[in-house]
C-alpha cells in the first residue's frame, strides 16, 4: 500500500501493508496502481501554483512542499490569513491538504503533520511542537524506536534532555535536527527553481483573459522591471513571464536575448513574437489572476546616449532583430557564421545561434583561393555527401561521364586532387582520407567531388557558383 484515503485509514489499513492483507481486512477496497512519476508531476504542478505566494518553493520529499514566505506574509494579510488562503486554495482544487507555518522548516513540517492550519510565531516553535509525539519529526524508524524505549514520547521531553546525553546516545545529527526544529540553527530552503535576479508581478482581483489586457500587463511589468534594471545599470539576457491561471495551471514563457535588454518596448515586442509563435498557444481559460515577469542573467548594460558610430548602431539594431526572429522561430534557427580552426570542409565553419555567437571562440576567416583565382570551396554544401558514379572517360577526349541524382553529366574540366586527411586526433574512429576535385560540366555547372581513398567511391559534396 503506497497511499490511502481517509476512509481506508479509518478502517485501520496502513501504508506499507501488503495488498493481500489489506484486501483481507476490507474486501471492498478499491485499488489503483501507484504511479510515483505522475505523483511527482502533480506535485510539481502544485508547486507551480504555490509560486504565486513566493518564488522560494522547494519540494520536500515526494508528498510535501516547503515554501519560504519570509517577508511575503504581509502581502496576503498576515501569516494566518496567508496559510488559510494557501490551504483553501488547494482544497478548492480538490486536494486533501495539511499545512502549517512556523519560523523553522522542521517545526512547520512537524506541525503540519498533526496540527494542520496552525501558525507558530517566531520564538514559540519549541512550545508549539513540545506536545507532539516524536514520530512527527519523521526520524528514521530506529531512532524513533530508541526514543520510545528511552521513554521520550513527546518532542518536548526529548528536547528537555541534556544535549550531551542526546548526542552520545543518538548522534550529533539528531541534535542538529532538534536545534533546527527549535530555531537554534538555520536550514536553508533550496528552491525548486533558481531565484530570478529581478521580478515584477501583478495580481488581479478579476482575472484577465484578453490579449490586450495581457499585453498591457506585460508592458507595465516590463516598465517596472526596466526601472529596477536601470538603477543598477543592468540588462537581462533572459526574461520569463509566468501566467498563473485562476484554475491553478501555470504557464511559463521565456525569451532569450543576444544582448542585455531593459527597454519595455523591446521586451514587449519579444514576448509578442514569442506568444504569436507558440505551437501550443497561451490559453487563458477563465483568466489569469497573477502575471509575473522575471529577469535572469542580468549583465552590465550602459545607457547609450547617442550613436556616432553608425556600424555599432547597426550592429545593435541587428541584434534586436535577431532577438525578435529568435523569439519567433527559435534561437537555433537564427544563425550566424563563425570560422572553425580546421581544414575539414564541413567543420571549417559553423552556423551557430546568432544570440550566442559571441560566446564561440573566434578564429579569423581565411580564404583558400589566391587573388585572381577561382573559388576553391562550394557555395552550397550537402549535409551528407551524395554518392556519384564516375562511369568512364569518353574515348579520345578529356571528358568524363558522371552519374548523379539519376542524371548523366559530362565533366569537361576537373582539377585535383586536393588531399584532405581527416583529423584522427579529433575523432574516435579514423575516417578515410578524401581526394577533392573541382569539376565543371558541359553546361558550366561546377561541382565539388571527392574520392574516398579507401573505397575509391566518388561523392558529390557541394556545388560552386
Amino acid at each position, binding site marked *: 500500500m503506497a497511499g490511502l484515503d481517509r476512509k481506508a485509514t479509518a478502517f485501520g489499513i496502513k501504508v506499507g501493508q501488503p495488498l493481500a492483507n489489506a484486501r483481507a481486512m476490507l474486501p471492498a477496497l478499491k485499488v489503483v496502481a501507484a504511479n510515483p512519476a505522475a505523483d511527482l508531476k502533480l506535485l510539481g504542478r502544485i508547486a507551480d501554483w504555490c509560486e504565486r505566494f513566493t518564488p522560494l518553493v522547494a519540494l520536500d520529499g515526494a508528498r510535501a512542499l516547503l515554501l519560504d514566505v519570509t517577508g511575503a506574509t504581509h502581502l496576503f494579510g498576515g501569516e494566518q490569513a496567508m496559510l488559510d488562503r494557501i490551504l483553501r486554495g488547494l482544497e478548492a482544487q480538490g486536494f486533501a491538504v495539511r499545512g502549517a507555518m512556523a519560523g523553522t522548516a522542521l517545526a512547520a513540517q512537524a506541525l503540519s503533520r498533526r496540527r494542520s492550519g496552525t501558525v507558530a510565531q517566531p520564538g514559540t516553535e519549541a512550545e508549539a511542537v513540545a506536545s507532539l509525539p516524536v514520530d512527527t519529526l519523521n526520524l528514521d524508524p530506529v531512532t524513533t524506536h530508541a526514543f520510545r524505549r528511552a521513554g521520550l514520547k513527546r518532542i518536548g521531553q526529548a528536547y528537555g534532555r541534556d544535549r550531551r546525553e542526546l548526542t552520545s546516545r543518538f548522534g550529533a545529527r539528531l541534535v542538529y535536527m532538534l536545534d533546527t526544529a527549535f530555531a537554534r540553527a538555520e536550514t536553508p530552503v533550496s528552491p525548486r527553481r533558481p531565484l530570478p535576479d529581478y521580478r515584477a508581478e501583478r495580481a488581479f482581483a478579476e482575472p484577465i483573459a484578453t490579449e490586450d489586457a495581457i499585453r498591457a500587463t506585460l508592458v507595465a511589468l516590463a516598465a517596472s522591471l526596466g526601472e529596477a534594471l536601470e538603477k543598477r545599470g543592468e540588462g537581462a539576457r533572459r526574461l520569463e513571464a509566468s501566467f498563473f491561471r485562476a484554475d491553478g495551471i501555470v504557464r511559463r514563457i521565456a525569451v532569450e536575448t543576444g544582448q542585455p535588454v531593459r527597454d519595455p518596448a523591446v521586451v514587449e515586442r519579444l514576448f509578442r513574437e514569442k506568444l504569436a509563435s507558440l505551437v501550443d498557444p497561451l490559453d487563458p481559460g477563465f483568466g489569469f489572476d497573477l502575471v509575473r515577469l522575471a529577469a535572469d542573467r542580468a549583465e552590465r548594460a550602459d545607457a547609450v546616449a547617442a550613436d556616432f558610430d553608425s556600424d555599432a548602431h547597426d550592429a545593435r539594431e541587428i541584434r534586436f532583430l535577431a532577438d525578435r526572429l529568435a523569439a519567433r522561430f527559435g534561437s537555433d534557427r*537564427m544563425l550566424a557564421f563563425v570560422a572553425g580552426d580546421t581544414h575539414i570542409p564541413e567543420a*571549417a565553419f559553423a552556423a551557430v545561434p546568432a544570440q550566442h555567437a559571441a560566446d564561440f571562440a573566434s578564429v579569423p576567416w581565411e*580564404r583558400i583561393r589566391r587573388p585572381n583565382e577561382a573559388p576553391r570551396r562550394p557555395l552550397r554544401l550537402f*549535409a551528407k555527401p551524395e554518392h556519384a558514379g564516375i562511369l568512364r572517360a569518353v574515348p579520345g577526349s578529356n571528358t568524363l561521364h558522371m552519374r548523379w541524382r539519376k542524371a548523366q553529366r559530362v565533366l569537361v574540366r576537373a582539377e585535383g586532387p586536393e588531399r584532405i586527411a581527416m583529423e584522427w586526433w579529433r575523432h574516435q574512429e579514423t575516417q578515410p582520407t578524401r581526394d577533392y576535385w573541382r569539376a565543371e560540366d558541359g553546361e558550366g555547372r561546377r561541382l565539388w567531388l571527392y574520392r574516398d581513398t579507401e573505397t575509391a567511391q566518388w561523392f558529390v559534396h557541394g556545388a*560552386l*557558383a
Partner: protein
Amino acid sequence: MKPPTSPNKLAQLRASLAKAGLPEIQARVPLGLREADEVLKGGLACGACHEVFASAGHEASATGFAASLAWRVARGKRVLWIVQDFSALEFGALAATGLLELGIDPARVLMLRVAHAEDALRAASDALTCTALGAVVIELMGAPKVLDLTASRRLTLAAGEHGVTAVLLRLGAAPDASSASTRWVVRAETSSDPENWGRPVFDCALVRNRHGGTGQWVMEWSCDNGHFQAPGGAVVPEARDRPAAAALEPGRRSAA
C-alpha cells in the same frame, strides 16, 4: 567617423519629397557590367524587390548570383539570408567558406532557417523594416501558394519604405506574376579561360524590368573586386544560340 544617419531625418526628407509631388529618387547600385547597367538605368535599385530564378539544375549558380547581388546592393551593410529547410536539404546548405571565396564576408551574413514559405515571408517583412540591414535574401523552394501577388506587393512595399533591398531567390520554380522590380533567370555559363577556369560566370537573362528594357548577358562576378564584369575581363561574347534553353524559357531575348 561617419556622420550619423537618422532614420527620422530620412523619413522627413521622403515626406517633403512626396509633398512636392516629386518622385523619390531611388538609390541605384551599378552591377559593374556597363551593358547591363545601361538597361537598368544606372544599376540595381535599392529598397526594391528583385527576383532571381534558377534554371532547373543551376541552383548553385543562381545562389551565387543572388548572393553577389545582395552583397553588392548591401554596400557593406549586413545581409540576412532566410532559407527554407527543404531548400537546404535539396540543394545543399549555404556554406560560409563558399561565401568567403566569393569575396563576401561571412561575418556580415546572418542566416534564418524556417520551415515554411509562410514563415519566410513573415520573417522577411519584419527584417525589411530593420534599416541596419543592407539586403534580405529570401530563398524559397518551388512555388508556394502563399507567395501570391499580394505577398509580393507587401515585400516590395516594405523594401521601399525602409530602403532595404529584398532578393527573392526562387529555386525549382518557374517565373510567374509578381510586383518585383527586376526578374532574372540565371544559369551557369562555361568558363572561357581553360587555364584559370571555374570563376563564377553566370548567364543572366533579365526577363522583367519595371524601369526599362530586358536583356541577357554573360557576367562574371569578380571575387577580388566585388563587382560584375565581362568574363575574364574581356569583351562580352555574343549570346550563343541555345534553342533548347530558349524553348524552356519563353520571354528571353537578347539585349539590344
